[in-house]
């Protein structure tokens, strides 16, 4: 995966994130404070800003995005996304074959978000989505899939996990104070991940 392609794919994901803002606010509003879309609009703006500056090197680019989000979107969700980018940046330092690289990045992002947010799989948070994506990418690496195909499968895993969260009670964060109100609606964080990965996979597929 070269840098120009990564810039293109991340740009498409950021645009999809901007478009999804009202939907993310709506989903977050069922049990949270209804501002995930607001934060993610800010995240998308920062991602595009960093992409436009033409940072050289994949780890450097991901690191600059993480630092930018930490600076510009200090809410809980912003901090978690910043952590995911920073960990992914560290994980891809050694380079390697693209599918394995993606798997390493998402595994590191999962671990970072899990530790920072103190959430475990099953708590109905972004961690559930990242865990399914990480597992999918690991399987694709083992199966020797080409990275575009692996990304498409990961997006599919993110979508089905987001759907599955609709039947789960939230156990972390503000939503856990009123767990019943969230039932029947997919988790906002998992939906966000499904949206950006779907957009990234579609762009990668050309």
């Amino acid at each position, binding site marked *: 995966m070269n840098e120009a392609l990564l810039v293109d794919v991340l740009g498409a994901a950021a645009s999809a994130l901007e478009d999804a803002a009202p939907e993310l606010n709506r989903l977050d509003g069922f049990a949270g404070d209804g501002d995930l879309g607001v934060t993610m609009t800010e995240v998308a703006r920062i991602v595009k800003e960093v992409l436009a500056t033409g940072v050289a090197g994949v780890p450097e680019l991901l690191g600059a995005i993480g*630092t930018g989000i*930490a*600076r*510009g979107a*200090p*809410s*809980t969700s912003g*901090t*978690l996304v*910043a*952590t995911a980018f*920073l960990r992914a940046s560290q994980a891809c330092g050694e380079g390697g074959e693209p599918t394995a690289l993606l798997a390493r990045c998402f595994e590191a992002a999962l671990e970072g978000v899990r530790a*920072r*947010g*103190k959430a475990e799989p099953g708590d109905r948070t972004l961690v559930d989505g990242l865990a399914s994506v990480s597992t999918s990418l690991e399987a694709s690496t083992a199966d020797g899939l080409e990275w575009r195909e692996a990304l498409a499968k990961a997006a599919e895993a993110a979508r089905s996990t987001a759907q599955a969260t609709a039947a789960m009670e939230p156990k972390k*964060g503000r939503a856990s104070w009123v767990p019943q109100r969230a039932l029947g609606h997919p988790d906002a964080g998992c939906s966000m991940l499904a949206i950006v990965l779907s957009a990234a996979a579609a762009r990668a597929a050309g």
Partner: protein
Amino acid sequence: MRKIINQPKAFVDEMLEGVLLAHPGSLRSPARRVVVRADAPRHGKVGIVTGGGSGHLPLFMGYVGTGLADGVAVGDVFASPSADQVLEASRAVDGGAGVVYLYGNYSGDVMNFDLAAELAIAEGMQVATVVGTDDVASAPEAQAERRRGVAGIAMLYKVAGAGAEEGRSLAEVVTVTERASSGLRSMGVALSPCTLPAAGEPTFSLPDGQMEIGMGIHGEPGVSRGPLRPAAAIAVELVDHIVDGLSCGRGDDVAVLVNGLGATPVEELYVLYRSVHGALVSRGIDVRRAWVGEFATSLEMAGASVSVMRLDDEILGLLDAPARSPLLARW
């Protein structure tokens, strides 16, 4: 809403401008919503960085001073500062001996301080963290590490700040502050809610003549609500809860801090202190030091909290070391 403000949205920044205009010799601002000691960084001294939401003065900015913290990241009202603010504060106070993050245990603050630590370490700084978890009402003793941090942190600033001022190493400052923290418990009572400037409405409702024992400094639910009782009864209930968890008894030395939440007069705090002192002494506990006043407020919430810290000679010595800040002349 009866408040002396301009635009509600400008509340935090105008408050900060006021602080900097009033105390130019003691404090400076190296970045937006970051305030540090005017003489920071001090070469070879461990730096102490704190921070949290606004609305609690003198917490957190009031503890930036000699023998206390070196820098603070100032959040919106009741909201965490960003990791970037914490990082800016760290850069401004790091004198090469490392930085301790000392703040209260709230999920947003923990995430941002942890992220800042990651960024600071990547820049080559040494960073260690001690989180205040003194509020016994917020989780049972078995899960003490999950408790929120409240007014007791004022005493932790003295311990950590004095240790750093003496020239102790990062590890030494952390060890003694953690020991002080493990022997520190607080509990409060709220009599009326507060109103966030930007919200305009009280954060919760508490009918006249009612009190809520154990309520948090952001209006988090407490352990019991009922008719307002006399100061002596409140003191006994708070001290019972605190001392149980502290396993503190006859012959033990403690320091006590009685804190007003913003709208309770200091006279009432002394009335409360009188009974707190009595409740401790009746258990054979020796009150070696006491402070009464406003140390961690919740805007104009009425009520008070009591903090008790177990002492040993080393911690008592650090508590007695000189400490002063422009916002807390007597501290």
